[in-house]
């Protein structure tokens, strides 16, 4: 038996952690996977040590453009924990609102991309059309469609007024109706069913031992969500459900995200209804006391953890950040192993590695030593059509 090596990536710079997967193939089946990441290693951890705490907020926000709110949120929370600083309650609620808006936009983005991967471009276009409404709300609250610059040390950067609240609520009400339709599509549509049910199985035991996070582990039926287990911002006071599905496949992971959008809509509405009065920001010192802190938030893709060590002064001594995609890479390898090559894109996208659909492939045929490049979509067309 000869196996063929198939190299996925690394030409996927859209990720902050672009991966390369070397797949060992036996015909159509994937026998083994070896990940290799870090192709766009920018050196943020080192740069953060050389900049002040204030500058770091914006540096760290740009680790990932999609879940930028989660990155800045976990950073400011960790620095505030280091200092033993309490933010005003209104700021905690506003952080929660923007964090959830970020989650909705991220989930809709992924579900749309998944639609495109299925060859279901209509779903992609419709989901992205409705995503624009969320972007409008984010823009009106934070001043930019994507990078929010909303969380700052000591609170939030800007307040919301009554017109923004009513606009946000209107958008959420509309989105809930749309999401009911999309849930039906994901639950019942034959295209979705055929492409994702039973694809990329991740058993609960492997999900636990490989330390998977976020929708990936919840799609394997394990009920864990940092918003409930390790509450931060205003999550301790807001009721919501932790979504789990127990079919362990890619479909379960997509459904977790669909249902989480409903929960996020509920959280935003509750938070806007119960918004406390008072200041949005307290004065935060430029110099932070000595010590260390570990902060974690549930980013759209799962647990995001920061560890900051301070030796006093206005710069962190050590800044460590672990993003959720890194935690899920081993789980993705587990999903791919044993499956067919045509299922690789769907399994990979079910961990939400930002944009795996745009991943390019370099195929090396070992026997001939030839090398040529193709996009996953072209490859899928080729492999999909031959069966």
């Amino acid at each position, binding site marked *: 038996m000869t196996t063929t090596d198939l190299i996925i990536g690394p030409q996927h710079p859209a990720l902050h952690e672009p991966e390369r997967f070397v797949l060992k193939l036996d015909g159509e089946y994937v026998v083994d996977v070896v990940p*290799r990441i870090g192709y766009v290693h920018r050196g943020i951890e080192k740069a953060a040590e050389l900049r002040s705490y204030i500058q770091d907020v914006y540096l760290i926000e740009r680790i990932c453009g999609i879940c930028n709110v989660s990155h800045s949120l976990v950073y400011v929370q960790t620095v505030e924990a280091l200092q033993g600083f309490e933010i005003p309650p209104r700021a905690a609620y506003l952080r929660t609102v923007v964090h959830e808006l970020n989650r909705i936009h991220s989930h809709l983005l992924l579900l749309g991309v998944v639609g495109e991967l299925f060859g279901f471009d209509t779903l992609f276009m419709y989901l992205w059309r409705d995503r624009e409404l969320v972007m409008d709300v984010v823009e009106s609250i934070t001043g930019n469609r994507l990078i929010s610059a909303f969380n700052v040390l000591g609170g939030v950067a800007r307040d919301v007024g009554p017109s923004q609240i009513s606009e946000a609520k209107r958008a959420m009400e509309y989105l809930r109706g749309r999401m009911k339709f999309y849930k039906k599509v994901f639950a019942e549509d034959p295209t979705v069913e055929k492409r994702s049910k039973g694809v990329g199985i991740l058993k609960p035991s492997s999900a636990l031992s490989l*330390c998977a996070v976020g929708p990936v582990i919840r799609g394997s039926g394990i009920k864990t969500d940092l918003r409930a287990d390790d509450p931060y911002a205003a999550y301790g006071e807001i009721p919501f459900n932790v979504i789990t599905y127990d079919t362990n496949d890619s479909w379960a992971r997509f459904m977790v995200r669909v249902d989480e959008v409903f929960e996020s809509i509920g959280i935003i509405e509750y938070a806007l209804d119960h918004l406390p009065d008072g200041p949005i920001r307290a004065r935060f010192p430029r110099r932070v006391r000595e010590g260390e802190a570990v902060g974690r938030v549930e980013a759209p893709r799962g647990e995001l953890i920061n560890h900051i060590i301070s030796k006093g002064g206005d710069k962190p001594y050590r800044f460590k950040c672990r993003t959720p995609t890194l935690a899920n890479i081993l789980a993705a390898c587990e999903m791919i192993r044993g499956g067919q090559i045509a299922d690789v894109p769907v399994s990979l996208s079910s961990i939400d590695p930002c944009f795996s659909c745009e991943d390019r492939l370099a195929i090396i045929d070992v026997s001939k030593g030839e090398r040529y490049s193709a996009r996953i979509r072209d490859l899928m067309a080729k492999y999909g059509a031959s069966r």
Partner: protein
Amino acid sequence: MSAGMGEADFLEALKSKLGDKILRASVMGPRRVAITVKPGDHRIAIEALKAFGGSHVSTITGTDMGESIEIAYHVWCYQAKIEASIKAEVPKSSPSIETISDLIPGSMLYEAEARDLLGIEFKGLPYEGRLILPEDWPEGVYPLRKDWKPDWLR
């Protein structure tokens, strides 16, 4: 899942299991504890955390402390609902420690990452080669060490 336990109770329970293997222990904040052990004992400590549901390695931080490198394993205990940071210090001249990837396979990439960026050797780590740094990165240069500071970096 259970409601979790307090930080002080957690430390008490852990001390009764590990005894004098714990060099230092402290509560960092709500649901955060830090325990320092000797390198080598860290495997026993992580094994002990499994009684509290501690099967999830969140990440591994390596920090250049000047003379030594501090390795912190952040383990989330699902039942106790505590994020325990197990720390061990290894000398910077020969940074070497046993892997925990046989106890918790999910820690493999974090160990490989720390090896790339700080040059810590994890004995028994199955992942070979570079994980994060480019292939043409010079051998023996570890960007997160404090003494690596080229003049163009600011």
